[in-house]
């Protein structure tokens, strides 16, 4: 069962719509018992880092999520803020992140007239091989839709699978073992996002 984790933040319906389009049924739930039965987890997120981590803690989801990710080692995909939650922490707040990926989250510094948030379609390039990005090789341009004011940098470049540039180069998608993260919104990145979800379902 694919579980889209509902902790009160994020565009859950869009993710479910796209999964439905590629023929996959997903359960949207914030119930720890349901999450415990997941075979794949999608962790969405829109909003502030601390608010999100608090809600995850208050909903009693942290233990079950840790167990699924680190003990059962099922494929987990964090999207946008959901990817930032996978890191150890963010410059946006003081709360401890999930820490499943050796990485930290930083704030964009507005430079050269670049506006924050970074919002819109941007090109990405491959920085490492991953099952999440198979079938992208023959594309001359791969682009995704981004909306974020903070970005992730991995400690170890081997965990970076896609990079994008917005004043600084940052990790647009990451993988560490069974844990995947996408800073952009694959559910809103038509063909490219669809393929990424298909890849995630085949991991």
């Amino acid at each position, binding site marked *: 069962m694919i579980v889209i984790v509902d902790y009160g933040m994020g*565009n859950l*319906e869009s993710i479910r719509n*796209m999964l439905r*389009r590629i023929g996959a049924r997903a359960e949207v739930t914030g119930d720890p018992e349901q999450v415990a039965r997941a075979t794949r987890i999608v962790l969405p997120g829109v909003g502030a880092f601390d608010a999100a981590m608090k809600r995850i803690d208050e909903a009693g989801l942290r233990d079950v999520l840790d167990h699924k990710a680190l003990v059962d080692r099922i494929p987990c995909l964090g999207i946008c803020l959901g990817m930032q939650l996978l890191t150890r922490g963010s410059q946006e707040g003081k709360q401890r992140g999930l820490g499943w990926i050796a990485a930290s989250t930083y704030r964009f510094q507005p430079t050269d007239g670049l*506006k924050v948030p970074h919002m*819109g379609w941007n090109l990405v390039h491959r920085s490492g091989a991953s099952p999440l990005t198979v079938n992208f090789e023959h594309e001359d341009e791969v682009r995704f*839709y981004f*909306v974020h004011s903070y970005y992730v940098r991995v400690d170890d470049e081997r965990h970076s699978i896609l990079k994008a540039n917005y004043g600084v180069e940052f990790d647009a998608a990451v993988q560490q073992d069974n844990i995947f993260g996408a800073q952009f919104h694959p559910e*809103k990145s*038509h063909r490219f996002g669809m393929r990424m979800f298909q890849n995630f379902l085949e991991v």
Partner: protein
Amino acid sequence: MLRPRVIPALLLRHEALVKTVRFGRFEYVGDPANTCRIFNELEVDELVFLDILASREGRAPNLKVLSEIAAECFMPISYGGGISSVEAAGEVLKSGFEKVVVNTAALDRPELVTELARAFGSQSVIVSIDVKEGWLRGQECRGMAGRRSTGRAPVDWARQLEELGAGEILLTSIDREGTWGGLDLELTRTVADAVSVPVVAHGGVGRVEDIALGIKEGGASAVAVGSLVVFQKQGMGVLVNFPDKDALGEAVGWR
């Protein structure tokens, strides 16, 4: 780096898509969900849906139609029409939209813009400014789908909206809308120069070159298009289409 966005602006009238000329003369374009499917295939960057009757009829957003649209759109989508509270905006976002558009309700109660920005973040809040040339006073902002005069000057209102927390401004020239005659570049430039939030220029695009002009000369961050992407040509039948990627890239200077 980001590319300038080209955004089809689709007009909802009850449950159908229509196209207008200077905010009048409705012409039926098609079924919303079906049109979305075509725009998916065309890999369009973003769509904005505007219910042109909701405010006039005092109606809340039609969530049934919005859910049907969201289920078919795999790109960022915005909705405007009849949103007058944080709750109503929340429902629209929850149905699968990324951004809400307000106009009349913000003219009535400007604090709404701040409330929306606090609740959902500025990036989710677009304020639409509909501009019409008046007999004496020059250009002014209009509410109620162009029918209500406000006496506000576009630049002043845009500045105020930025302060209130608007994340983006959809700037429409009522006089150009549906005419194929090109954007009001002067209006676009004065507003884009006055604010630092992205300005989406709308109203009058009839050629790919008009899009490029809106960005280069108008200083817009994005351009919204209507007739160009729903009709075959001016005066001809409905044909949902989108400018060729290479032609657009060349005109706008992506490559």
